[in-house]
Every structure is written in structure tokens, then in C-alpha cells.
């Protein structure tokens, strides 16, 4: 890969805000530049040791010649991560200034970092519909929650974990619309796997992300003004999913709609309701104790 000069770099600028200022105050060691898709991204680390872990994880995409990147992603590890046994404090991954993953599992942070880096390639994919949503996996079945409802899911992580759900880490999901499945792929970003093994720790088994594989989608919960649990007609289902398509340009707008139509005709798409209703519904459906839906 050719070396770029600063004037050729493709940074994703993160403008200063109250949020970035608050994140900055947490204290960071450095921000280094890495190539992801067409972008030169800044990955910030909280300590020298964390920075070295990231550098050793991603040697092939490092861009040390570029020094102007914003902190697009930030990794915060316990300062004594490598000298201790099981970490007791939360390890964090930030997107810009917001924490997007809190876990006691440092390997999970690095794998999520890889998933975020992968997502910068997803815009150009044509094999799947790439959708911005949260997927919750329970006994090999997936429940999708679209943006607008995901805050409720974030607030209920512990409850969902106790109920046996694991999440797909990363900002985007690969949706096989013909088969009605979520596809979790191994990381595509070049990385040194030995570093993942190095930071792996024995942690609570529930503190993990969904494994690589295919998961049939049991239901999609989306935000439309209908009573919670109402099964939406296929057009409303397409509408609920449609604005969250990440690779619309690559698929073409018509191609994206056609694929979502195929999906919406085979998978129940439900009105998610508000706040706790969303999580209540997912938990009940997974446990078989709730009617899947009412009719619109």
C-alpha cells in the first residue's frame, strides 16, 4: 500500500463538542492513524500499554506517517491488564466520544474494534444488505432492534445477558434477505490473532459477543406509531428498516428496497413500543411466553 502524505489523507474529522471534551478529560496516551476502507482513522489509546497492544494488533494497516487524524475510535484498557488475571474493571471502546462497548472481556473490545474497522468497508458491499441495527442472539435465533429503540436495549444489557442473549458487536449487521438471516463474519481487517489470544481472559461467559455464524431472524422490532407488538404489513416493515440501510448506494436504491421487500415478506416485523416494552417483548418472544405479535 502506498504511503500517503497529509494532503492525500482521508480523515474523518470529529468536530469538538461537549461530548468530545468530556471524553478528552478521561486522559489519553496518543492517537495513531490506521487505514480502514477508504479512510484514515484515528485510534486513541488510554495508556502506552494499550497503544502498544493496538499497534501490535494492527501492524498491516498502521499509517505512522499520518498524524492528523481525529480520535474516531478509542480503546481504554485497565492499566494493569497484562499483569493481572481476570480484569475487574470495565474495558471500553469509544466511537468518537461515546462508549459503545463496556465489558470485562478485553478480547471482546479488540474484536469489536475490528468489527468497527470492518464496517468502513461495508458501504461498498453488494452481497448483503448492510443495516444499522442491534442484533440480539438467543439460542441461535436473532432479534433485530432498529435505531430509535436501541437505547432501551443498551439500558437493559444486564437483564438481556441474564436471559441468555448475546449481542453482535459492531455498528452494522449483514442481512441475508433471501434467507432471512443475520450473518456474523470473522474480522476482515488484517490483524495479528496472537494479540487477541494474549489479552483473552476468563470472564463471565455471558460477557461475550455472538460467535461467527448465521442466525435466522425471528423478528424485527422497529419504531413506528403502532401499539407494541403489532405486526406491521410488509410495506411498513420495509419502511421501518429502509432508512437504516448502510450500503444503499452500492446496492442501488431499488435493489435495496427489493431485497428488503423479500425479507419483510418472510420475517415478522413488529412495532417495538417504547422503553421497557421493547426489551419485554424480545425476552418474552425468546422465551416463548409472549404471543409473537398481534395483527395490524
Amino acid at each position, binding site marked *: 500500500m502506498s504511503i500517503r502524505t497529509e494532503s492525500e489523507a482521508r480523515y474523518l474529522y470529529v468536530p469538538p463538542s461537549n461530548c468530545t471534551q468530556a471524553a478528552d478529560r478521561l486522559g489519553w496516551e496518543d492517537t495513531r492513524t490506521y487505514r480502514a476502507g477508504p479512510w484514515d482513522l484515528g485510534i486513541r489509546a488510554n495508556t502506552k500499554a494499550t497503544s502498544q497492544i493496538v499497534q501490535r494488533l494492527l501492524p498491516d494497516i498502521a499509517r505512522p506517517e499520518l498524524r492528523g487524524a481525529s480520535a474516531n475510535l478509542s480503546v481504554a484498557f485497565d492499566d494493569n491488564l497484562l499483569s493481572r488475571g481476570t480484569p475487574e474493571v470495565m474495558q471500553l471502546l469509544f466511537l468518537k466520544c461515546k462508549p459503545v462497548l463496556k465489558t470485562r472481556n478485553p478480547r471482546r473490545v479488540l474484536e469489536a474494534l475490528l468489527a468497527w474497522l470492518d464496517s468502513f468497508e461495508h458501504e461498498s458491499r453488494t452481497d448483503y444488505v448492510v443495516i444499522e441495527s442491534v442484533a440480539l442472539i438467543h439460542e441461535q435465533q436473532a432479534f433485530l432492534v432498529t435505531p430509535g429503540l436501541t437505547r432501551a436495549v443498551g439500558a437493559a444489557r444486564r437483564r438481556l445477558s441474564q436471559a441468555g442473549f448475546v449481542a453482535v458487536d459492531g455498528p452494522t449487521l449483514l442481512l441475508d434477505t433471501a434467507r432471512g438471516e443475520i450473518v456474523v463474519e470473522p474480522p476482515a481487517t488484517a490483524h495479528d490473532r496472537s494479540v487477541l489470544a494474549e489479552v483473552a481472559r476468563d470472564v463471565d461467559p455471558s460477557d461475550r459477543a455472538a460467535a461467527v455464524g448465521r442466525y435466522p431472524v425471528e423478528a424485527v422490532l422497529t419504531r413506528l406509531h403502532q401499539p407494541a407488538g403489532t405486526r406491521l*404489513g*410488509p*410495506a411498513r416493515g*420495509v*419502511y421501518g428498516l*429502509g432508512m437504516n440501510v448502510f450500503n444503499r448506494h452500492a446496492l442501488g*436504491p431499488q435493489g*435495496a*428496497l427489493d431485497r428488503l421487500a423479500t425479507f419483510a415478506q418472510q420475517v415478522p416485523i413488529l412495532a417495538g413500543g417504547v422503553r421497557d416494552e421493547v426489551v419485554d417483548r424480545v425476552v418474552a418472544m425468546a422465551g416463548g411466553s409472549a404471543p409473537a405479535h398481534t395483527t395490524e
Partner: protein
Amino acid sequence: MTFPVDRATVPRQARGLAFVVLDNEAVIYEPTQDKLFLLDARATLVWQLLDGSTTLGTTSDELAEEFGPGVETLWTDVKELTSTMLQDRLAEIETKKS
């Protein structure tokens, strides 16, 4: 901005839209706004009839003949729906060259 229409107006579906119609409801993607629209069955029917050659008055009369409600009520619906679709760029009116 409002889009006044009358019975002589001849609108058509806007060019460059992507859409699917499922169970008589349309989902339409309008690229210049990067926006999706959901049309109920009634609006979908009207939108599908915007062919760029039929006046709105004729369209309204044909719908009244098929569905039976009072012509005036139906005309009001067609007029309002079409005006909204023009505003949302789901429909357009050809500008004639003089």
C-alpha cells in the same frame, strides 16, 4: 411551499424514484432528500395513476366511478394527496416549453 393543483393539472410520478408496492402500500425512496416515504393504500392508488398524460380531474372521475363515493369528496382527496406528493417530490408536473 404549497403546490396548487386543479382538475386540468397533469402530474406524473417523479423521475428517479425507487419504490416497492406491497399489499397495496408503497414505500418510495426519494434520492434528492435521501428520504423514504410510506404511502397508505389510498395514496398509493393515486400515486400509481399519475401517468403524465391524464388530467387529475379525469383520474378523480375514474376513481369515483370505480369506488363510488361522491365525486366532490374524492376530488378533494385526490387534490390534497397530489399536492402533498408534489411538495414531497414524489410527483412532478412537466414544464411545457413555449
